[in-house]
């Protein structure tokens, strides 16, 4: 096996296809039956406390599914969400809590993994109806993009904070700069990703940046945050809550909407990704070089089958690397592939972040991307891709663990 290229599909022929094991995974066994969210707010502007926002999103997702909220018997979340499942279950008067799960890791890397964990619980019989949720009211807590108010730094932070390498943008610019150098990526590639998100947000009344279009000129004139990221390469920070309801495929067929079936999900990161002080061996990476091949193997699809992609934008350069690591184009093709025309619905080669995503809809820590993927498969997106039967969500580039998932319509099973 050739491990020299991180873009090689290392596990292209999975063990189950070689007849060595039974087919793994949860392909087609679990579906997203309901989606819900609060209104999305600029950060610090939520009129209600964070836990109340979470409750509203959970009720909205149950209503969307046509399920009594008392049917919920499990919760899954990520990134140390502050809203404890036991408190949610007590507040909602749930008859029984059967599954309470937190995906390790920060940033948005756990978004798809949380869906996968919920699905695994349903497939294994631990629980029947699991809600995946995320809630943020940053005015009530610490912002992500500002330095924590500590006078000292220890461990990993001691190696970076005293040098002014503190925020997520500063942490990840270093990886993206190396990748752009290795592959001759031009600024226009990052710009196209930002323009596509803002373009889609103009058709999406939920989007915080609805009515605030972005031009290439405005992008080029925007200030540097940290080279190679300009202002519009960076996600927003927002308040709100989002939730999805997962049930078995059989049960989903009896509910209100066309089910969005989970075809595959994978999480993790490469060899020693977390080596401290920026010492990951596969440094210039979004952390998906091992995850993406496992995702495709489980889902039984290839990149050309994917009709629409939602890819977590903490920073546009992370999206760029994520798309490459998921096999949509080679690094050497990035400048040519990443144009606004190629990335917008309905007719682009790869419609991307069709709700506006973290850049322009809402930084719901990425969970708005899962919701948008479901809307696409229902035909209810505000930027529909009518031909899309397979939708991918990529969660949290450049952190560890990361995760990604593939949803499909009934006829993909």
């Amino acid at each position: 096996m050739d491990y020299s290229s991180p873009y090689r599909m290392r596990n292209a022929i999975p063990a189950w296809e070689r007849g060595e094991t039974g087919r793994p995974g949860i392909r087609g066994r679990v579906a997203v039956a309901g989606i819900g969210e609060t209104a999305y707010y600029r950060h610090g502007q939520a009129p209600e406390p964070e836990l109340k926002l979470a409750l509203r999103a959970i009720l909205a997702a149950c209503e969307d599914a046509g399920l009594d909220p008392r049917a919920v018997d499990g919760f899954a979340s990520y990134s140390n969400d502050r809203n404890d499942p036991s408190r949610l279950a007590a507040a909602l008067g749930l008859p029984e809590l059967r599954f309470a799960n937190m995906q390790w890791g920060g940033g948005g890397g756990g978004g798809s993994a949380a869906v996968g964990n919920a699905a695994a619980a349903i497939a294994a019989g631990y629980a029947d109806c699991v809600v995946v949720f995320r809630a943020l009211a940053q005015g009530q807590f610490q912002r992500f993009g500002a330095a924590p108010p500590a006078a000292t730094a220890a461990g990993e932070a001691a190696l970076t904070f005293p040098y002014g390498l503190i925020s997520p943008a500063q942490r990840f610019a270093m990886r993206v700069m190396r990748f752009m150098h290795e592959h001759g990526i031009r600024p226009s590639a990052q710009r196209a990703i930002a323009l596509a998100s803002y373009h889609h947000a103009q058709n999406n009344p939920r989007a915080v940046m609805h009515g605030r279009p972005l031009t290439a000129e405005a992008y080029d004139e925007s200030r540097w945050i940290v080279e190679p990221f300009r202002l519009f390469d960076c996600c927003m920070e927002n308040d709100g809550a989002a939730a999805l309801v997962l049930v078995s495929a059989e049960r989903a067929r009896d509910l209100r909407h066309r089910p969005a079936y989970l075809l595959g999900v994978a999480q993790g990161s490469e060899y020693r990704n977390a080596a401290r002080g920026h010492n990951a061996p596969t440094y210039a990476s979004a952390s998906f070089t091992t995850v993406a091949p496992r995702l495709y193997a489980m889902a039984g699809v290839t990149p050309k089958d994917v009709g629409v992609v939602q890819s977590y934008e903490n920073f546009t350069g992370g999206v760029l690397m994520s798309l490459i690591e998921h096999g949509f184009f080679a690094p050497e093709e990035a400048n040519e592939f990443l144009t606004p025309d190629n990335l917008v619905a309905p007719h682009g080669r790869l419609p991307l972040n069709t709700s506006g995503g973290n850049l322009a809809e809402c930084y719901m820590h990425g969970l708005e991307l899962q919701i948008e993927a479901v809307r696409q498969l229902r035909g209810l997106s505000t930027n529909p891709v009518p031909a899309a039967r397979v939708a991918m969500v990529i969660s949290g580039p450049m952190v560890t663990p990361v995760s990604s998932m593939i949803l499909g319509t009934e006829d993909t099973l």
Partner: protein
Amino acid sequence: MTVAPAYYLPSGLPRPVPEPDGLDAPYWEGTRRGELRVQRCRGCRTWQWGPEWICHRCHGFELEWTAVEPRGTIYSWERAWHPVHPALRGHGPYVVVLIALPHAGGVRMIGNLLGDPLQAVEIGASVEAVFEPHDDATPPFTLVHWRKTA
């Protein structure tokens, strides 16, 4: 009257302190002596950075701290403009570099690149370490910066 020492970045950023469990204390002690120390496995001689309690290659727990020649090459860099910390407000841009140490297994170290903050930065350029002691801090500490060599 004491003259304020000239530091690359303004005072008031978080001060580095060793971890409570002592894992990285030898590194920080080394910087106070003008030494750049990297972990090395006594068993298989693998270089390791950042520090850990075990050798990632052979799983030996016997790790020594080796002072290495403080020279390297620029592996990546960034120029930060937006002040994310109150101490950086009004300061202007600065350059952070990721330096590879080829003679220590290629491990990488973070620091600032001394000189004009608007200078052109080339990946692959040769650099040497410059120790920046903060003797006035409590407790005192020393940062390790880098500057280009011919």
